[in-house]
């Protein structure tokens, strides 16, 4: 469905993509993983043909360099930050439907699909972030394209909106759509991806299955637990003795865990009869904020 051969992108003397090659089969859901500036967005923009590149890129059998407009017709695009004009939901979909040559009835079908039918007369700037992202997905689906390109689609959404969005995209993938998405959220990659392409400084550094990613990249998570004030010192002592990196913060304690070992500290505390009141998981680097509540 998508073939990239020696894809290279330079901005002046800066090489953003360095000779990368990959193939994505029809029906796959492939994640582009990497830090900011790794080349994820550039790769997606090359797929869309909105910027020039060196190398060869075909989407659905269409050479992107030669006919980028036809390639875009085969792709539905959802950006990280939605950027709609000042129109209602219905006007927005009608406008893009005309550009995509979608039949008018399709507007109402996609509204149903993303559950925005009851909001169709609202102005887009009155929608929540999650609704805007669903509207972007509706626009992407107007012409029923075989490929969906999603650029960090849940980066600005709350947890519930993230889950709903991922669930919808999973359903679309199950109907046979090829999904290419960029992300730096491990849970999203695991939930949605069937394969991961890891980009680092413009190079294709690694290709693996989503569940292998954390181990191969040495990723960690922070487990945040809440314990009663009288158990806090014991908690820190027990976890410290077992070699965990901990960080107290108000009534909670952050514990650095590897992806496969999230349950172990909880079991240790259970054995020591320290009740854990609640817990949460946080990906990647930790920025601890002072708690003002409880």
């Amino acid at each position, binding site marked *: 469905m998508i073939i990239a051969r020696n894809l290279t992108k330079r*901005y002046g003397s*800066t090489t*953003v993509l360095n000779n990368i090659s990959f193939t994505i089969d029809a029906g796959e859901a492939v994640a582009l993983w*990497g830090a*900011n*500036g*790794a*080349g*994820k*967005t*550039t790769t997606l*923009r090359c797929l*869309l043909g*909105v*910027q*020039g590149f060196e190398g060869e890129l075909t989407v659905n059998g269409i050479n992107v360099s030669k006919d*980028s*407009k*036809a390639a*875009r*017709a085969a*792709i539905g*695009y959802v*950006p990280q*930050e*939605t*950027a*709609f*004009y*000042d129109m209602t939901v219905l006007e927005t979909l009608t*406008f*893009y439907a*005309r*550009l*995509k*040559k979608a039949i008018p009835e399709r507007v109402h079908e996609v509204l149903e699909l993303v559950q925005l039918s009851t909001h169709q007369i609202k102005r887009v700037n009155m929608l929540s972030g999650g609704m805007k992202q669903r509207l972007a997905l509706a626009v992407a689906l107007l*012409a029923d394209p075989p490929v969906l390109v999603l650029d960090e689609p849940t980066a600005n959404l709350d947890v519930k909106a993230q889950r709903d969005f991922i669930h919808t995209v999973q359903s679309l993938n199950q109907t046979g759509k090829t999904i290419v998405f960029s992300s730096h959220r491990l849970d999203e990659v695991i939930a949605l991806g069937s394969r991961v392409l890891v980009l680092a400084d413009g190079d294709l550094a690694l290709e693996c299955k989503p569940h292998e990613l954390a181990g191969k990249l040495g990723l960690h998570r922070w487990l945040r637990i809440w314990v009663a004030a009288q158990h806090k010192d014991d908690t820190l002592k027990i976890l410290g003795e077992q070699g965990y990196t901990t960080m107290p913060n108000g009534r909670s304690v952050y514990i650095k865990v590897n992806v496969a070992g999230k349950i172990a500290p909880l079991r240790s505390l259970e054995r020591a009869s320290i009740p854990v009141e609640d817990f949460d998981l946080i990906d990647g680097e930790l920025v601890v904020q002072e708690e003002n509540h409880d």
Partner: protein
Amino acid sequence: MIEFANVRTLGEKELRDALRNRWFIVFTVAFAGLALALSALIQPGGTQLRMVSYSRTAASLINLVLLFVPLIGLTLGATNLTSDRETGALVYLLAQPVNRLEVLLGKYVGLAGALLATLTLGFGVAGLALALQGSIQDAGSYLLTVLLAYLLALAMLSLGFLMSTVTYKSAAALGGALFLWLFLVFIGDLGIMGTALSTQMPIQIVFFISALNPLQMFKIAAILTIQANLEVLGPAGLYATDSFGALLLPMLLIGLILWIVIPLVSGLVVFSRQEKFIPKGSVG
């Protein structure tokens, strides 16, 4: 390959947006109001023959057009692409199955439609007011002045679009548009006059340099449609009438058309080769 259906879709959207734009509405009302006021003020109150001259109204509207039309044309054009760049709407639009030629042409056609509608309304209410006052004469020269105002508006919009393709922030585009407006309306003329005086520049060169300014092209052509000679413009005007005679008006019309086409085509060339869409410079 241009799909005109896409140009039309984009043009209709731009036209709708412009007609909803607060500043554009203010401009339209102000232009129509001033045109109406001018048409009422310059006509003699109690003519026995009830003869009303469109030419006199057209002459007074020339100055109004020279001031207003470049301002709105340049600012509308210059801020259009830049605001889309800033919000990310441009890259989203370009990610759809449209090409850049269609995007720029669609935007241009839509804004041109809005601008011409405003001029039609302004000239229309003034002309209607005159028609209602009594019998009319020289309506032809009035209509020709309207046509020239259309050409000037399109030329200013083209210049604004060119500016929009090479700037990345709305504030910079707006500043550039205002500076260009000031230059074309005031500074350019003053500079030419000053240089001509200090260097004893030959009159034909003064005329040619001055006539490169599209506003001057419009002014000279509009005066020519009202009266047969350019005495009102002084020695440079007399030189032009003597040297070019009946060819002067067609030459000026062609000049205005070139001011529409050249900046627009240049803008298309720049835009079609552009890689940078968002001022934040995110290339990750």
